[in-house]
């Protein structure tokens, strides 16, 4: 029966409660006795996993607070767990400390604090849990880069999170130092990429080096654009960062290597605006492009086998007919879009706080109607209608 059988039940439980959810799921498969033990002691908090989508934060260029596009009916926590897009539970809520979401990962959200002390907040909007950390000390001589922060968090593996800080080159008009031609012509991304990584477990920043696998995409000069931080996704222990000129850096935090993934073929790389958007779904990492002029949507899935990584086209649709058939009308509050609702924080925040409360109440009343709408599926988005 193995050496573990000698131990008293409480000790065995003490061992298992240190094992992260993914490991506990494996323990249930070990034997009937182990499954009964894990389930009997409720060690696996199955109600919290897998994660479900409760909402999407959207950063609009002309609003300085992120909007929350949310679907209350879909949250596992059930009714009454309305997630607010307002981060007014952060310290100093009157300030703009709750402005824009910089990054997110598996339910945690990263926000930069407002003020001189260079503080960042990590929060869970569903539970209103808040943590904070400070930026790493700036590297000497780095005058021409922004440091973008990316969250790494997988509650199925660990309750801790990491933050990866990645340099992004400024556009020449944004900095005043002399142009060093040697630097401008050096290849990018570099053969060894040095990143700062913060761990919530140690509460320390650590400098880590990652060796490049695959070829460089261009030169430092090619990377200089005005566009702000692009997003990243975290999938099975690797962080995929959407970089300038639409290539993706796949950083494996468990190793000291990173892969360079080139944009899908058929994407016209433009210097100043991203042509693809990164995301993840059932089969891993995806990217999508939307051609605004023609409402053409394309979706690729990243297929990885060993060291080769390739974008495979999954969808290629024209949304124009669908959009014409399902006339979307503009009205406030935003309520005619099925179960999903936009909290419209920027609009209501400029008004009196009373109005603000009205908005929340209205949202609650609508709950039931929305669940119905979602179950008959009429208002669900589907590209098949196109």
């Amino acid at each position, binding site marked *: *029966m*193995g*050496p*573990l059988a*000698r*131990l*008293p039940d409480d*000790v065995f439980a*003490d*061992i*298992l*409660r*240190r*094992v*992260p*959810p*993914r*490991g506990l*799921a*494996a*323990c*249930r*498969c*070990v*034997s*009937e*006795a*182990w*499954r009964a033990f894990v389930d009997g002691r409720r060690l*696996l*908090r*199955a109600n919290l*996993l*897998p994660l479900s989508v409760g909402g999407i934060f959207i950063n609009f260029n002309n609003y300085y607070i992120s909007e929350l596009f949310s679907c209350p009916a879909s949250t596992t926590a059930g009714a009454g767990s309305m997630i607010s897009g307002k981060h007014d539970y952060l310290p100093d809520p009157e300030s703009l400390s709750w402005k824009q979401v910089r990054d997110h990962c598996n339910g945690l959200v990263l926000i930069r604090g407002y003020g001189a002390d260079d503080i960042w907040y990590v929060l*869970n909007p569903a539970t209103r*849990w808040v*943590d904070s950390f400070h930026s790493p000390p700036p590297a000497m001589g780095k005058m021409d880069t922004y440091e973008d922060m990316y969250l790494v968090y997988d*509650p*199925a593996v660990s*309750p*801790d*999170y990491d933050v990866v800080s990645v340099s992004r080159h400024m556009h020449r008009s944004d900095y005043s130092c002399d142009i060093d031609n040697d630097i401008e012509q050096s290849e990018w991304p570099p053969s060894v990429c040095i990143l700062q990584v913060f761990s*919530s*477990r*140690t509460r320390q920043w650590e400098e880590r080096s990652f060796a490049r696998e695959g070829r460089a995409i261009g030169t430092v000069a090619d990377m200089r654009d005005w566009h702000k931080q692009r997003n990243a996704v975290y999938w*099975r222990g690797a962080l995929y960062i959407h970089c300038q000129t639409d290539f993706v850096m796949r950083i494996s935090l468990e190793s000291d290597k990173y892969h360079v993934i080139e944009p899908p073929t058929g994407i016209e790389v433009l210097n100043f605006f991203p042509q693809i958007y990164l995301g993840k779904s059932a089969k891993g990492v995806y990217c999508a492009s939307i051609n605004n002029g023609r409402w053409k949507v394309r979706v690729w899935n990243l297929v990885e086998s060993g060291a080769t990584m390739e974008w495979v086209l999954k969808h290629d649709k024209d949304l124009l007919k669908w959009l014409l058939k399902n006339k979307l009308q503009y009205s406030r509050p935003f309520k005619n879009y099925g179960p999903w609702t936009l909290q419209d924080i920027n609009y209501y925040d400029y008004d009196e706080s009373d109005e603000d409360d009205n908005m929340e109440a209205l949202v609650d009343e609508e709950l039931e109607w929305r669940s119905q709408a979602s179950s008959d599926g009429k208002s669900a988005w589907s590209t098949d209608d196109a």
Partner: protein
Amino acid sequence: MEVDKGKGEAEETRKVAEADRDTVTLKSSDGKLFEVSKEAAARLSTVLAGMIAGGSIDDNGTDLKQIGSEALENVVDYCNKHANSIPSAALISSSISFNTAPFKEPEEWERKFVDRLSHDALFDLVEAANFLGMERLLDVTCHKISEMMKGKSPDQIREVFNIKNDYTKEELEEIRQELAWAFYDD
């Protein structure tokens, strides 16, 4: 402990004699004797603290019939090392813990202490720590065993802990499907 200066030599002699009684002698199930500092024993083990306070300590060796000599040697070794270690700012696993009680992470020397043990010795030590009410040692040993499970497949866990698979293939598939999100389809 601070040495009280300014007292006579007689005092010093008395201190040496007292130092003898600063230890407790413990006797393993196979009759071997081990000495451990009374202070460390009382601080690290609720059971030994109770015995010391209750006067049930035998100067010729307190019988611990449930603990073998190898495990008892490790217990005593741990107590001595603990007394000599400088406590660092212990890491508390972050507040977004899976469970309500956050764990204090093992210190570097504690990791090394359990890493050198064979599986049998480790399990004997868990039992001894549990029997003696040594919360910290139990923490460190349980942590080590949990590390032996992390990131492993069910097959690998069975192999490490010598457990027989009593599922049929169909049952196993069903149980996997209950938590399909947890398994990478390799």
